[in-house]
């Protein structure tokens, strides 16, 4: 993985010193809260319902075991013993004290981590496909480009005060696993007719109160122009993006109001002036970044481990977990392993300090000391020998981290909701836990097939409820929490925005409504292979509405 050099180290150290000074100036009254707010946000510090919240970047979702141990230490020493993984490859702490945040940042800097630009109207953490480097369908590893974008976007002076936040994601597989279509810029590594690899550039996607799917602004961008092209898009956005209304300030609105053709014209005109300038990447620059992400020292192993076959035969619980959590790997004899943080006990995405330490130890033993964080709020070991899977599974069972619900209904994406968040209008976590209890039976869960379910506690859509096959949106109507149901969303290659079924449901009725929807699915599917999303797309929403409201 990427290793900081002296320049990177100095950057984060100086950032800590800068923020320490800003906090001091806030505490002595030199800065008003209005003035301090954008500064603390640029360091990941939010003011929530009960306390400050600190968001730490996990660039493109990659963690070394020593970094995860540091995150555990911070949870233990400065927080209440847990952290929450978000949908954008960050971890959030819900109870830090403002005067201790500079110390937390200094601790993070020791292990090459930071909170830089994890909030505020600037370029946020660049996210990636969590199977980068190991996916069977990969065209090229996106992580070297993510790191290039991370460095280019860090303290970019021209784009530090944008109309609104700006999120970039990069995916390297034939299948999109990074929700590109819902990012301000989505970059998909593609191969053109000449066999060259470059980027398809998409712009103007987003969720929130106006969900939109990104549009392709350029079918093929040669790699050496990655940064200059991003800069051209950001410049057009910085100068023309709306600043009169916070709800119309994202680039998706600019693209929508002007049309993708006009935005393309402006971006390409700006880019023409800079494309061969100082930002052009040379082959050796790219090669240098690629070297950081060279494959680990894999052993030469048989494609199918014979011991594993026996274990699968003799241990049904292991076999069930294996069938769900183990993902194919491009290297013979290896597998990737999903570690579900949807235990039904803790809030989705939550993990305790002790679990983090234990996961770090397991990563050292079984996966070259690295851990991935995915956009579904789960963790992943990318490089596990097939012969180690049974031992790893047993260790995960002991940690309550072996719930085999990867990609199933109870693998719920949820925001923190009104239990923590000052923006939320309804609670999310209790609904998630209710659903997980109701669909605890694994045979029933598996019968429902692959299914994504996302719960947001307000229209800001942090849990991407429009992008779930089933989405739940908590709203507040005259002091009562109500839950609207959306059907038909997807964040994959076939991205689509879910549609609201109708009036919302009371807290004690929303789980029943989900059950009604799934009953229709089971009745109407043409076979177990037809997924919920396929049935919904075939039938439309009418049969579901009839069951819900008829």
């Amino acid at each position, binding site marked *: 993985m990427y290793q900081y050099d002296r320049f990177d180290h*100095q*950057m984060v150290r100086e950032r800590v010193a800068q923020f320490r000074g800003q906090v001091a100036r806030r505490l002595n009254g030199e800065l008003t809260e209005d003035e301090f707010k954008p500064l603390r946000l640029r360091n990941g510090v939010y003011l929530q319902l009960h306390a400050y919240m600190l968001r730490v970047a996990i660039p493109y979702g990659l963690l070394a075991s020593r970094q995860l141990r540091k995150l555990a230490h911070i949870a233990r020493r400065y927080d209440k013993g847990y952290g929450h993984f978000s949908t954008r490859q960050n971890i959030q702490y819900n109870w830090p004290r403002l005067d201790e945040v500079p110390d937390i940042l200094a601790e993070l800097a020791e292990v090459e981590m930071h909170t830089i630009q994890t909030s505020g109207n600037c370029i946020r953490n660049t996210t990636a496909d969590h199977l980068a480097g190991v996916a069977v369908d990969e065209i090229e590893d996106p992580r070297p480009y993510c790191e290039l974008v991370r460095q280019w976007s860090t*303290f970019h*002076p*021209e784009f530090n005060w944008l109309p609104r936040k700006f999120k970039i994601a990069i995916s390297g597989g034939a299948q999109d696993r990074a929700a590109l279509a819902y990012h301000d810029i989505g970059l998909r590594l593609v191969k053109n007719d000449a066999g060259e690899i470059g980027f398809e550039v998409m712009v103007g996607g987003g969720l929130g109160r106006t969900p939109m799917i990104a549009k392709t602004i350029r079918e093929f961008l040669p790699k050496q122009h990655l940064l200059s092209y991003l800069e051209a898009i950001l410049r057009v956005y910085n*100068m023309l993006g709306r600043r009169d209304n916070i709800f119309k300030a994202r680039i998706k609105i600019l693209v929508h109001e002007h049309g993708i053709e006009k935005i393309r014209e402006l971006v390409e005109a700006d880019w023409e002036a800079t494309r061969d300038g100082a930002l052009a990447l040379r082959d050796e620059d790219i090669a240098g970044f690629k070297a950081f992400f060279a494959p680990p020292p894999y052993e030469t192993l048989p494609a199918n481990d014979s011991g594993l076959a026996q274990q699968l035969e003799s241990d049904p619980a292991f076999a069930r977990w294996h069938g769900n959590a183990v993902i194919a790997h491009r290297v013979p004899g290896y597998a990737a392993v999903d570690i579900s943080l949807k235990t039904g006990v803790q809030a989705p995405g939550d993990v305790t300090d002790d679990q983090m330490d234990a996961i770090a130890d397991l990563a050292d033993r079984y996966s070259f000391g690295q851990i991935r964080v995915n956009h579904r709020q789960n963790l992943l070991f990318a490089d596990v020998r097939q012969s180690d899977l049974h031992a790893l599974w047993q260790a995960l069972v002991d940690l309550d981290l072996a719930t085999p619900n990867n990609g199933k209904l109870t693998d719920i994406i949820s925001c923190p909701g009104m239990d923590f968040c000052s923006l939320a209008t309804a609670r999310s976590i209790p609904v998630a836990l209710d659903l997980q209890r109701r669909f605890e039976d694994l045979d029933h869960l598996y019968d429902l097939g692959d299914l994504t379910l996302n719960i947001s506690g307000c229209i800001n859509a942090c849990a991407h409820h429009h992008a779930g096959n089933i989405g739940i949106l908590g709203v507040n109507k005259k002091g009562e929490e109500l839950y609207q149901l959306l059907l038909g969303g997807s964040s994959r290659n076939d991205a689509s925005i879910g549609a609201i079924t109708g009036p919302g449901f009371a807290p004690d009725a929303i789980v029943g409504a989900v059950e009604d929807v799934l009953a229709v699915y089971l009745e109407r599917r043409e076979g177990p292979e037809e997924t919920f999303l396929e049935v919904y797309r075939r039938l439309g929403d009418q049969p579901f509405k009839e069951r819900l409201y008829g």
Partner: protein
Amino acid sequence: MDKILKDGVLIDNEWTDVTGYEALSSLPSGDIVVPLDQWLEHRADLVKRNSRLGVRLRNDEDPARLADDLGRIALVVLEFPSFGDGRALSQANLLRRRLGFEGEIRATGDVQRDQMNDMRRCGVDAFAVRPDRDALAAAEAFDDFTYSYQPTADGRLPISRIRRGDA
């Protein structure tokens, strides 16, 4: 007289902003700053004055409209209506790096310590710091960071070039 932070020291502002003057004949003597529209309309007459000339850009105006005139202008005044509005950062960058403007670029409006380093890195070299703030203390922000990841207008070599051994 209001003060301008430039090259690390506070100097008196010697420029008169003539926004709002209606007739050219009534303009005061000395160095003047005119709004872009007025400049474009009257530049043939304005250049006959025996003074330096500056142009004020609103932050929604395209600096490329000054492309042919930059040799005749000694100052471009940019506006930061609030510290969260970074449009003029792009204007400064375009003036310096694309249009090659070598005169003074002055930041006005809500100019404060925690935004000034970004301004400077985009090419601003004179700061009308908010009068209720200590301008010299604010200038300490210029020392916050030793290096830069990006090629920018302040002339520092970006880290990528230092890594190549260009420094």
